[in-house]
């Protein structure tokens, strides 16, 4: 039996998950659960989605063997190139699925939260393509550090609303998107951007992203004749990690989800409930949710998807942390060694691989390069002043 779970109607992965939402949203979540199951099992829906992924998003994404880094680090390093997807990250996989589903459900409008702006851009893109109205909530701190993505979303016809409450980052953008959804649930689909939130989102979003892992499993087999020894991905909410882990969960590969030291839900959090789910959560002694601090807006999140909490609890995946300084070094290392500028989120995975390479000598390592770094160049210019 696969370790990959299909949650029952209680939406649980072990003790984690569930559906902790205001009563107003319960029927909408139930409706979504049924609609997703129906669509997922409908060959016509799957064919439509596959066609979009192929002809619009550019799937399958290739794998790249990093010869220079491999030599430097004494490992055999492969990248799964989600950065080459349309809109520049893995986020498009989930968004095309959800927006297609929203349309099938007769919804006229989507709302989305975004941190770094990648999910917001992907949502705005899919909404433009499929003709739905789109509103994106984004913390004001993130708007300031990701102004290019804000402009992209507006260019694509989406409305972007700054969120001024709380830490003014991703967690508060989720709150505001949920508040919008409570008021607009009859016409609106909440296009949640990670493997988090109330059931069925963690399950549904993972299913939409497992194409990453399924492709990579075949590609690694073709390239090396076997599965990699390590599969490494960054984790904020954890969607790109769940996507690639899905393909290797039943292989002997060690699964490594790298969290930022300032947003380490699994290693520093305790079980808690926020944003509709029970999962590991950074919180204080009274259960107030802590504010995460990370150089990367996309990982600035105090919680984590419930399936990651489950995989951590059974010991199937590991969740180490890296510091912002290690991330900055990882960002430059990949850029200079391979000619690939990674998203700051993915630079977390690079940073871990670089730090731990001494313990992986001769091993095959597959890293999910979940997004490209163009969006981060402006922010990095102000950090790497000696280059300007």
């Amino acid at each position, binding site marked *: 039996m696969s370790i990959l779970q299909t949650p029952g109607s*209680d939406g649980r992965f072990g003790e984690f998950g*569930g*559906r*902790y*939402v*205001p*009563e*107003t*949203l*319960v*029927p*909408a979540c139930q409706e979504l659960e049924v609609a997703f199951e129906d669509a997922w099992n409908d060959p016509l829906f799957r064919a439509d989605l596959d066609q979009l992924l192929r002809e619009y998003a550019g799937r399958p994404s290739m794998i790249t063997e990093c010869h220079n880094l491999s030599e430097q680090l004494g490992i055999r390093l492969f990248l799964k190139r989600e950065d080459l997807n349309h809109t520049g990250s893995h986020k498009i996989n989930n968004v095309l699925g959800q927006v297609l589903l929203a349309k099938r459900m007769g919804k006229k409008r989507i709302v989305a939260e975004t941190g770094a702006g990648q999910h917001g851009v992907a949502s705005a893109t899919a909404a433009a393509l499929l003709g739905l109205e789109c509103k994106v909530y984004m913390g004001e701190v993130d708007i300031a550090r990701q102004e290019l993505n804000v402009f992209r979303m507006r260019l694509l016809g989406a409305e972007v609303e700054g969120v001024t*409450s*709380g830490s003014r980052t991703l*967690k*508060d953008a989720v*709150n505001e998107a*949920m*508040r919008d959804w*409570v*008021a*607009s*649930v*009859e016409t609106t689909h909440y296009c949640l951007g990670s493997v988090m939130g109330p059931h069925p989102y963690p399950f549904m979003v993972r299913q939409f992203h497992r194409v990453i892992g399924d492709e990579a499993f075949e590609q690694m087999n073709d390239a090396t004749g076997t599965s990699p020894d390590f599969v490494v991905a960054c984790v904020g909410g954890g969607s790109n990690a769940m996507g690639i882990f899905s393909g290797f969960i039943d292989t002997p590969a060690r699964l490594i989800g790298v969290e930022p030291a300032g947003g380490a839900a699994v290693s520093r959090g*305790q*079980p*808690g*409930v*926020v*944003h*509709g789910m*029970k999962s590991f*959560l950074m*919180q204080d002694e*009274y*259960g*107030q*949710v802590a504010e995460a601090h990370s150089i990367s807006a996309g990982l600035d999140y105090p919680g984590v998807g419930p399936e990651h909490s489950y995989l951590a609890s059974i010991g199937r995946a590991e969740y180490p942390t890296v510091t912002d300084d290690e991330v900055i070094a990882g960002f430059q290392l990949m850029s200079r060694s391979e000619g690939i500028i990674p998203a700051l989120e993915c630079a977390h995975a690079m940073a871990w691989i670089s730090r731990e390479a001494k313990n992986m000598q001769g091993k095959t390592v597959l890293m999910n390069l979940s997004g490209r770094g163009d969006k981060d160049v402006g922010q990095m210019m102000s950090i790497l002043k000696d280059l300007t």
Partner: protein
Amino acid sequence: MTGRLEATLRTRIDGGGKCLVPYITGGYPGWVDAVRACAANGADAIEIGIPFSDPVMDGPVIQQASQIALEGGATPVSIFQEIRTLDIGIPLAVMCYYNTVFHAGHERFANDLVAAGVSAAIVPDLPLEEAGDWCVAADAAGIETVMLAAPTAPDNRLPLVAERARGFVYSVGLLGVTGERKELALTATILAARVKKITNKPVLIGVGVSNAAQAVEASRVADGVIMGASVVNRMMDGGSEAVGLFVAEVRGALDRASW
């Protein structure tokens, strides 16, 4: 067994009156005086909000009050300590998000409420399907768990919600978060009528009931109202005096109306 909150509301209803339950954000500067002002001016019960970092059911007013309370160092423990000293003679319900309960532990939280003299709890992000464990602990401790009925609930769901509710059924007045609105939403009385049809428990409308006229309009169908943002707004602008005047005005309007 009927709990203290439900019994108190029933006394009002059986006497031909309508219930008024104001909401006050616990821990906000001057909140204890505001609670006393509510009690002194005709509230039947008072809902005390335990501020939470991520209040997804609350609009800007209660969000702001919560944030100020948290920045001032309010915790569930400090609020319970102050509640214990209140002695105002009417039942109290706390409104808190589920992580506050879960983090403390169900039994401990229920016992803390009892020790503080609180009768009931409203947990807006704990829907029926997730409420089981908490309800077991709450029932055992004698804490009444108020359940929310939403305008989106299909007919087959409402009886399950009403059946599980203790104290009263909280009939959500609109699709949206807490906050004042110019008009009472049409959905408010439509939903309350649906709930009244399937339960004998008191049915109170809350969320979007913003002034005395709207309270009267809502109470044409419901057994009374919960008033949150309008009360908290007055607390933030004018302190306990403004709260007292407002509660007295709504009480007067409810008492003068003929039902």
